[in-house]
């Protein structure tokens, strides 16, 4: 059975349909990359999986259990953690306090403040600094660490490289590689196609709220993804001309 699956999910922002009938599933230990232009519905999809948006239709299943009506804080307890776009740290609180908040759901596991600080050594001297005063890279590390503190089965990463210098992005991805190697299941949204393809097992390209292309990251060519990205593809699975 798939660890997480999404069935015909529809999510609206008022009148706007951001996600229009998306289905996919992910196996334990797999890394799935979500790519697509701005406004394709990637962030909304991740937020719906995390429970921050109530879908208008469709279901989200974790280990076969229907999560659709489960509020976000309980999904954390069930093993889904989101690193939100824009990091969304509690800026009035310190790095350590932000990390400890990740433990609220109380899932068993080996993540601790010290282990996060080992993974991101740059945070060590900033442990008691308020996150509002951190650099972008330090903030991103804290956000990832906060999600890991809940010992998730599925980690959702939304644009973790946004606004960071290439050097810092390398460092963040080096840390992610360690997570991937350790068998954590990951869904990540990434603007950088090369990076998305290199780090993931499978890729889904979204266009206007729908899945425009889905395939193994090793098998699809960069060209195919680019075409799906801009809607130049024809007869790809799931696509309907607008």
């Amino acid at each position, binding site marked *: 059975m798939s660890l997480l699956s999404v069935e015909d999910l529809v999510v609206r922002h008022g009148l706007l349909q951001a996600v229009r009938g998306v289905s996919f599933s992910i196996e334990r230990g797999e890394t799935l990359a979500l790519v697509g232009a701005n406004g394709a519905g990637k962030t909304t999809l991740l937020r719906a999986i995390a*429970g921050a948006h109530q879908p208008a239709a469709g279901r989200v299943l974790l280990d076969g259990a229907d999560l659709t009506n489960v509020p976000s804080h309980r999904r954390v307890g069930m093993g889904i953690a989101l690193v939100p776009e824009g990091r969304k740290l509690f800026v*009035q609180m310190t790095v350590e306090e932000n990390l400890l*908040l990740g433990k609220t759901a109380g899932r068993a596991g080996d993540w601790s403040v010290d282990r996060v600080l080992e993974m991101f050594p740059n945070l060590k001297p900033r442990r008691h600094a308020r996150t509002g005063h951190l650099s972008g890279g330090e903030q991103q590390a804290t956000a990832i660490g906060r999600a890991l503190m809940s010992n998730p089965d599925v980690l959702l990463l939304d644009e973790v490289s946004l606004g960071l210098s290439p050097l810092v992005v390398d460092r963040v991805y080096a840390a992610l590689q360690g997570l991937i190697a350790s068998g954590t299941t990951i869904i990540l949204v990434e603007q950088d196609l090369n990076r998305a393809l290199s780090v993931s097992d499978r890729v889904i390209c979204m266009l206007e709220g729908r899945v425009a292309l889905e395939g193994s990251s090793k098998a699809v060519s960069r060209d195919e993804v680019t075409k799906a990205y801009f809607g130049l593809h024809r007869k790809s699975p799931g696509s309907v001309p607008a």
Partner: protein
Amino acid sequence: MSNQIIQGILLGGYYALIACGLSFMFSVMRIINLAHGSLAVFAAFALWWLASRFHISPFVGLLIVLPLMAAIGWALQRFLLERSARGGALLPILTTFGLAIVIDNMLFEQFGADTRSLAPYIGSLSYDSWEWPGSIYVGKLAVIMFASAVILLGGLQLFLTRTRLGRSIRATSEDPDTAGLVGVDARRANAIAAAIAMVTVGLAGAFLGMRATFDPYAGAPQLLFAFEAAVIGGAGSLWGTLIGGIVLALAQTLGAQVHPQGFLIGGHAIFLIVLFVRLSASGLGLRGLLRLPSRSAS
């Protein structure tokens, strides 16, 4: 004169007590509870009822009334404020104002127009005083009140910074949506925060009843005192509330020196002066006067 200043400072403890619940609730839920004063008067009446009917000392009565206030706070958040806050920032003002009218008039219906006091039920404490050097007499009750305020504010501060629940409440106050994403039950955190706020209101009501008289319509002035102290001290910390309370009380003391009816005028005037100075200093970008107590954390 120095005697009056000390009395004023000690009275500031009461204002800090009544203000801290108001600003705590505002900082967590962004709601100014207009029934705040009425709930304090309700607590005072509850203690008075226990004392006059069952001869339960108000201090023992608190063991009953404070848990009751906590339950009221929880229910208030769950059944009233949560729902009305979904309708925007203005609706909770109307809801809590309506609630204040209901509470005030129910109290009037139940207890009549007579002014009451808890002073007769606390023995000599209501008039006992200590003599300090310089022949200054300070009431024991006033000192206890001030000490309670300090302990309460310090305790709240520790709770917010040192406990998991406190962190959850601060996270919810900062960003309820993201708090949910890290596993915090924002609804629960808000309900607990409301319960805590009402416990402080209950305590403030007890001291209101012990140090002065109250009647069913005494809630409105208490709300104004609480609001004024919270805004004056709004530098961003719970301790600011204490300073706000002291400033308010000193201004009232000074007002009473100037004119027999100057006590309340002095308080309102200092509030407006502080407001004016702060508005002039901050320019148009002022987002709010009451701020998070958690900002002072760490």
